[in-house]
């Protein structure tokens, strides 16, 4: 295992990306061109279990989902802060651990507040 990493070590990511893109684009074009195409008024409507279509799907949705998304942004950023500490855990020792426990305590305090506010309550 080499200790230092050069930018060229990341080059295979591009190979993989190229392969995946090539596969997807080819498949999409092929399946688009060899299938049959028949259009009709009823068939082009969105599927609603056979009843007449009422409006479209550009409707407001429950605020719960947006709250979850906002909470995710907050918590995921805090999780990412934990990663550098975890990697350097042995070097930072007890001091680092105490600092991180304080950090996680703040995180959990916020978490407790969210639960008490009823943000995560789904009925």
């Amino acid at each position, binding site marked *: *295992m080499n200790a230092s*990493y050069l930018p*060229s*070590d*990341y*080059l*295979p*990511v591009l190979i*993989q*990306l190229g*392969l*995946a*893109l090539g*596969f*997807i684009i080819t*498949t*999409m074009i*092929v*399946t688009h061109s*060899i*299938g*049959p*195409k028949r259009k009709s008024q009823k*068939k*082009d*409507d*969105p*599927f*609603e279990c056979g009843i007449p279509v009422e409006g479209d*799907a*550009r*409707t407001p*949705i429950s605020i*719960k*989902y947006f709250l*979850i*998304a906002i909470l*995710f942004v907050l*918590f*995921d950023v805090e*999780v*990412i802060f*934990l*990663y550098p500490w*975890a*990697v350097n*855990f*042995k070097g930072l020792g*007890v001091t680092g*651990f105490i600092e*991180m*426990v304080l950090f*996680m305590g703040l*995180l*959990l305090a916020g*978490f407790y507040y969210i*639960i008490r506010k009823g943000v*995560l309550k*789904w*009925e």
Partner: protein
Amino acid sequence: MDLTIFIVKSIIILAVFGISLLIATYSTYVERKVAAFMQDRIGPDRAGPWGLLQPIADAGKMFFKEDFIPAQASKWLFILGPALAMLTALMSSAVIPFGDSIRFDNYDIPVQGIEINIGVLYIFGVVSLGVYGIMVGGWASNNKFSLLGAIRAASQNISYEVALGLSIIAILMMSGSLSVRAIVEQQAEAGFLGWNVFTQPLGFIIFLTCAFAECNRTPFDLPECETELVGGYHTEYSSMKLGFYLFAEYINMFVSSAFISSLYFGGYHYPFMEQISNALTNSLGAVTGHNVATAIGTAAFFGKIFFFIFFFMWVRWTVPRFRYDQLMNLGWKILIPLSVLNIIVSASGLLFNGMKYASWLIVIVATVLAIMSNSRAPKGQVSPQRS
């Protein structure tokens, strides 16, 4: 990086790419066979011997179906959705170490597409982009069922991602590196019992649960739950676009099985590997012996992957689907606090004379608490009481 290594790398990437497509294709067949076995049926048996050509027949059928785009849909986003889902699924297999290394005259090339020091972050990054594929596709369909499925999927995936990220921090503390290969090597140091599944049982359970939720597999398949949402986010899709969504799910299953095996089950290591490897190098010579030992390790790794793919299917026919509030409560109120607790206990254990097995403490306490609360609960509450 000189040209020879570059070419060998490209060949390895091509092989990994092909293998993940092949395994995903045959997972559809195995899933149907396993389902049939569990339900005492025969399963697909018409195309080829034992129905072995069934996946090829399915793929052919999907190619020749009509590529349907609803009139109200946003056309380009509708095409982009499955393409994104497939792209992220195909990209994630690159950093998984499939074996030790292949030895040429003077080269030592690891059996791994991309050997980078941020492998774990790479996988998390690519996997979390996968939710865009579902979200974009479901929204672009302009269908209410698709929209509901897409929103459920997005909300579920991001909720479980927090716990997923927290659950492996204890592993990173032990390995001190974000490279998947370094994590695999670190597990082998203490032999068979040093595998992370023995040092981090709680982290393993949390990770496994989150992996099920991230792959949208039963019992967390609410985004495509057919009793409520017709087909979920892919209701309006047909032909190979639908195929891409289904295929991406199987590739994700393969990648998460491989990731679980390398994080918790020692990757390409197996019990008594050292002795077997030494015996091979002594009898076959340094180069051939090493390569044969690598091949055995890779075979062991694929054995673990296949077990976990089977496990995914086994659970599908064993556990019923969760309700949406139960899913959210499990993710936020149980898994996240548990994984924070796991981090703190494991960290204190490691600081306190480097004890790796501190996580067992939580498991034992949790088991005792569960037994106690079970024995204290009043009997006969199973039947609903009439007023």
